[in-house]
């Protein structure tokens, strides 16, 4: 029966190294006998240009319409071979690969076994090739404007960088002024310039830029659409309006919270949080009564925070230098990671700041308005120390901005256990969200100091730029596809897609079905598995292709 299949098998012996362990001409002879196999070729260096040109010619000359490459791992050169196939006028997805190097000849020292397995692998690839389907490449034009939510230093920096890259940016801040946390600090470590100056410089750049549009006292209500063509509903005062963007960057920072549970005490005029201290020092003219002894307690909770010890050390030193008096830092493991922090710690010690290490949380009590701290000093073999003090500065835990839960769920974005935005896969894509075209920057997804927040902002700006700069994105049309006739619109796939790439759509203006947004889909195939109607097909990983791979099981070629 003529099924129109013309399979071409291209074997590569990797510079002759694999020919030393097996007889490639014997493999070739066996393969030539298989049905639908039109051509079998042996090459020594299929990864090189010359061999690929020959391969391209063979595909064309022999009229091959399915290409099988038996060589090294597809993880290495699959894309190159797809390019060759495409240049030969065949759809680039009509390629299937057999990994005969890493997973055969390199893994199995027994030559006979390796050769047998190689035949099986090639057989599997050939069977798979029978079910391959073409996927067309198209381009989708995208809106090049970027929306940045949150006008703290991270959001500001991201907007500036985008503007320098010539992308128009809308910066939405819910407060009346830009700057976020930086507005509240008198100084920052190790930054030499004051936060005010940092902000002033940045705000000047914002004001001078033609590309940045600032919206203060404004909030994002919701977002519809997909990467490249999001439309965002924004509220400002009593008005509401919709604007379109290609990408969205979240830079909503974090807020801090004092947990009276951890300390077992309430805040008062002489027990204050780090943030309160920052604000007090910022308006230091107000500090009328100079405290004689000040204690800081840090890393009392198990959560490792970068900024809490940073704030404690910086202010301990500041107070020591400014007001003299006794300054003591109670800490557990004082982790100081970050540029210059070791120096800050030494400076503190040299200036006479006292450090007490504890294992068991200190007991804090108040008598006649005076604070008494009892702690077992680890460095003094657990000796009990009692410290009276005038001012106690306690640490806070960082929590996501109040509305991130709401925003996260209206936007279908992942949140971690504490409610912070969860990156797609922290290790691989540190600034990407689970949704294509939505990014995170700054302290809304990580515990960062100023310099790190700025770097983060630049990285995100670049990612957004790469995505949108061309004004269009190449996309594989319907690489994963819903059959509208089979879809029962049960919503299962819409709920399950980890990248929120599936939405409802109408066919013939009537029946509701699920539809996949090609740009947002990342090809995982989860939807195809969960669909109870078997209505979804990932064209590169169809059931037929996967099942075909074990057709040969038990009957080695």
């Amino acid at each position: 029966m003529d099924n129109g299949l013309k399979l071409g098998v291209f074997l590569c012996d990797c510079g002759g190294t694999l020919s030393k362990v097996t007889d490639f001409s014997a493999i070739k002879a066996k393969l030539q006998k298989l049905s639908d196999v039109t051509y079998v070729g042996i090459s020594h260096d299929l990864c090189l240009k010359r061999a690929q040109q020959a391969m391209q010619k063979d595909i064309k000359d022999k009229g091959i319409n399915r290409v099988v490459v038996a060589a090294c791992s597809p993880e290495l050169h699959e894309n190159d071979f797809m390019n060759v196939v495409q240049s030969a006028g065949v759809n680039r997805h009509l390629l299937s690969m057999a990994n005969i190097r890493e997973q055969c000849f390199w893994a199995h020292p027994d030559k006979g076994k390796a050769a047998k397995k190689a035949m099986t692998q090639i057989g599997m690839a050939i069977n798979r090739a029978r079910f391959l389907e073409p996927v067309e490449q198209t381009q989708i034009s995208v809106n090049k404007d970027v929306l940045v939510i949150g006008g703290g230093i991270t959001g500001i920096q991201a907007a500036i960088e985008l503007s320098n890259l010539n992308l128009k940016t809308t910066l939405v801040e819910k407060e009346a002024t830009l700057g976020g946390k930086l507005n509240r600090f008198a100084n920052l470590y190790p930054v030499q310039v004051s936060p005010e100056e940092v902000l002033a410089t940045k705000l000047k750049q914002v004001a001078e830029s033609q590309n940045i549009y600032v919206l203060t006292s404004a909030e994002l209500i919701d977002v519809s659409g997909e990467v490249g063509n999001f439309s965002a509903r924004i509220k400002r005062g009593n008005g509401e309006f919709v604007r379109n963007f290609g990408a969205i960057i979240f830079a909503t920072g974090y807020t801090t919270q004092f947990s009276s549970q951890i300390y077992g005490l309430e805040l008062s005029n002489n027990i204050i949080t780090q943030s309160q201290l920052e604000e007090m020092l910022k308006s230091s003219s107000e500090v009328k009564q100079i405290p004689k002894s000040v204690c800081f307690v840090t890393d009392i909770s198990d959560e490792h925070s970068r900024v809490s010890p940073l704030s404690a050390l910086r202010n301990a030193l500041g107070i020591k230098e400014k007001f003299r008096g006794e300054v003591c830092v109670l800490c557990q493991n004082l982790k100081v990671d970050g540029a210059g922090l070791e120096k800050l710690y030494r400076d503190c010690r040299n200036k006479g700041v006292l450090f007490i290490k504890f294992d068991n949380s200190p007991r804090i009590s108040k008598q006649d308005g005076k604070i008494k701290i009892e702690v077992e000093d680890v460095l003094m073999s657990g000796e009990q120390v009692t410290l009276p003090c005038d001012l106690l500065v306690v640490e806070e835990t960082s929590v996501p901005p109040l509305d991130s839960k709401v925003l996260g769920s209206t936007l279908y974005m992942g949140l971690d256990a504490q409610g912070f935005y969860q990156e797609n896969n922290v290790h691989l894509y540190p600034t990407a969200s689970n949704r294509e075209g939505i990014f995170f920057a700054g302290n809304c997804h990580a515990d960062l100091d100023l310099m790190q927040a700025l770097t983060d902002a630049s990285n995100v700006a670049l990612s957004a730029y790469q995505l949108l700069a061309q004004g269009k994105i190449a996309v594989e049309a319907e690489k994963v596809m819903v059959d509208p006739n089979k879809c029962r619109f049960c919503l299962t796939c819409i709920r399950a897609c980890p990248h929120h790439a599936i939405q409802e759509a109408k066919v013939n203006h009537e029946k509701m079905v699920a539809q996949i947004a090609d740009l947002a889909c990342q090809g995982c195939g989860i939807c195809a598995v969960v669909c109870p109607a078997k209505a979804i097909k990932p064209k590169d990983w169809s059931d037929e292709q996967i099942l075909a791979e074990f057709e040969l099981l038990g009957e080695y070629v």
Partner: protein
Amino acid sequence: MKAKGAFLPDIVAFCCAQSAYQAADTAGSMRITYPENIRVIRVPCAGRVDVLHILRAFEKGADGVLVLGCHEEACRHLSGNIRAKNRVQRVNTLLQEVGIDGKRVEMFTLAPNQGSRFARIANEVNERIKELGPSPVKSGA
């Protein structure tokens, strides 16, 4: 009946291209060997592996099936590995209903650079399946 030593099980290993498939490559690159009867099938995510794929592998005569994905929290598609784990659990029950030992299907997680872990899993599972003997549905078994 064949002696136990002579039994070479057919094992199908669905391997996530983000991790396990690369781990198998790493094993090869480091010349760490493992039983050659483990048949690797590359999938874009462990979440692409369907209950049906596994059942069909047994219909085709597999003695054991492995689903190998990324470590928890490290899935490129967030929930793919967790879904795969749930499905493996479901297949265990479905096979048990049929009268096939549910232990013939197992799920493991690994990172792309864990070549030796891949080989160790392959070896251990191979031994376990050998112990269980040929699949009771295998034609001629």
